[in-house]
């Protein structure tokens, strides 16, 4: 472990960190603008050109708001809870490759914070830890609507994690590796969305449910639960939840790109640009969904997860396993 390796890693960590912190306000701006136009409004336009600085202004406002902790809340857990989903989102982002190896000062540097050889499992593990932020946030508030929101989301996330994991397993069966860098490399001739279309559909549905985004945003259903798990959170604690939601959207999109859409690979343009283009398209898709679909009912959501997605992912896995075994690839 030499100094150059440490410096390179630190720089990569800072790049990813900075990218998320700069990217999230842009995504929020994009979301408000796109939804505005989809609903025949113009969206934010006052602060900065095209309203670009609107989310920065919102961030500053949140920063200066009073930080309230309810008297009956569990103080330690209440303070800890908003940080958890942010931490897990950054941990998951650390294994997503955003480019090929490049040469910097005569050294080969991989454009990925670290290439763990169990990267896919690592991502599933960190996203499963992200549930705690929401569950604990709901519980620590010591208030009924946040608790209901927290309970809902814990049930929802556990249910959808299963199908999500299994849909990724079918790709792993084809590639024979858990490392995201080599999964990306194996898609040089064909993106895995072609042979694994169903796995992708299942994955992205579960991914939306995992990030608690519309139409699966039952945890913060404002018509029933005030604001769900984050009702009692104000100021930067609320901002952290907000940041985590968008960072997790990046994580889910990043995995989808790496596993199903050839990662950073693409013709003509440099790899990092391709990664960013694909990421933007995915984030646009998220926003598009939110503007299109109404929220599901809670029982429909659970039934859909357990009775449709899970059997479908198992069926897809079985078919993949049979095909892989018959073709004698491994």
């Amino acid at each position, binding site marked *: 472990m030499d100094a150059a390796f440490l410096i390179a890693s630190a720089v990569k960590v800072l790049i990813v960190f900075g990218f998320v912190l700069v990217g999230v306000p842009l995504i929020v701006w994009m979301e408000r603008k796109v939804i505005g136009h989809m609903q025949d409004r113009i969206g934010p336009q006052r602060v900065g050109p095209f309203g670009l600085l609107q989310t920065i202004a919102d961030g500053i406002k949140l920063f200066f708001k009073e930080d309230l902790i309810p008297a009956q809340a569990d103080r330690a*857990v209440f303070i800890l809870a908003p940080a958890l989903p942010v931490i897990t989102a950054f941990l998951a982002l650390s294994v997503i490759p955003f480019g090929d190896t490049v040469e910097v000062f005569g050294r080969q540097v991989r454009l990925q914070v670290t290439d763990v050889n169990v990267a896919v*499992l690592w991502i599933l593990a960190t996203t499963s830890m992200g549930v705690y932020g929401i569950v604990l946030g709901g*519980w620590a508030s010591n208030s009924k609507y946040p608790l209901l929101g927290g309970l809902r989301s814990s049930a929802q996330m556990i249910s959808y994690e299963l199908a999500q994991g299994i849909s990724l397993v079918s790709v792993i069966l084809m590639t024979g590796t858990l490392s995201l860098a080599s999964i990306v490399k194996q898609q040089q001739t064909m993106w895995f969305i072609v042979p694994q279309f169903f796995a992708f559909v299942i994955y992205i549905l579960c991914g939306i449910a995992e990030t608690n985004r519309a139409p699966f945003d039952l945890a913060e259903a404002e018509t029933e639960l005030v604001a769900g798990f984050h009702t009692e959170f104000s100021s930067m604690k609320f901002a952290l939840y907000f940041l985590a939601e968008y960072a997790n959207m990046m994580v889910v999109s990043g995995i989808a790109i790496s596993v199903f859409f050839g990662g950073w690979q693409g013709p003509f343009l440099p790899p990092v640009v391709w990664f960013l283009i694909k990421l933007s398209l995915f984030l646009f898709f998220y926003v598009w969904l939110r503007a299109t679909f109404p929220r599901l009912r809670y029982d429909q959501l659970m039934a859909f997860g357990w009775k449709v997605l899970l059997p479908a992912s198992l069926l897809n896995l079985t078919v993949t396993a049979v095909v892989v075994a018959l073709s004698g690839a491994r």
Partner: protein
Amino acid sequence: MTEAILFALFSVSAIVFAFNVVFRKNPVHCALFLVCVLLSLSGMFILLNAAFIAAIQILIYAGAIMVLFLFVVMLLNVKGETPLLTPGAAKGFGFFFALIAFAELLWTVLTRGGAEGTPEQAVVLPPGFGSPAEIGRILYTTWLFPFEVTSILLLIAVIGAVVLAKRKFL
């Protein structure tokens, strides 16, 4: 050296968290400290060249099972002040089981661990040790029978849960 520092870090934190699991009054806090214990243990697994086991440990135990634990604790809304067992009985049971576990560990260390664990006889790891492929291979060859027995056990638990849940609606 790095390894020794990390080992100390993970083992000490695991022990401290474990004490908190036992001594905290609030069941939700206990569950959270148990999550911390599991995370420290997965750090130890990584030090043992078992990254796969470490990831599975976080994914299954810390990420899924403990969330369900928390879910149940929150739903039942167990009050921190009312212990399940009377203090005397709880202490008796706890002491009894702790004694058994300690005797077991002591026996293992004295009979087997002592000779093999010395640094001079450090074991050379076979290639692919701890990798998912290798674990899968021995799970389906050497340890096939225990593996299948475990899966049947889990299946029984699933069926049991379905039967218990269905009874209400019959």
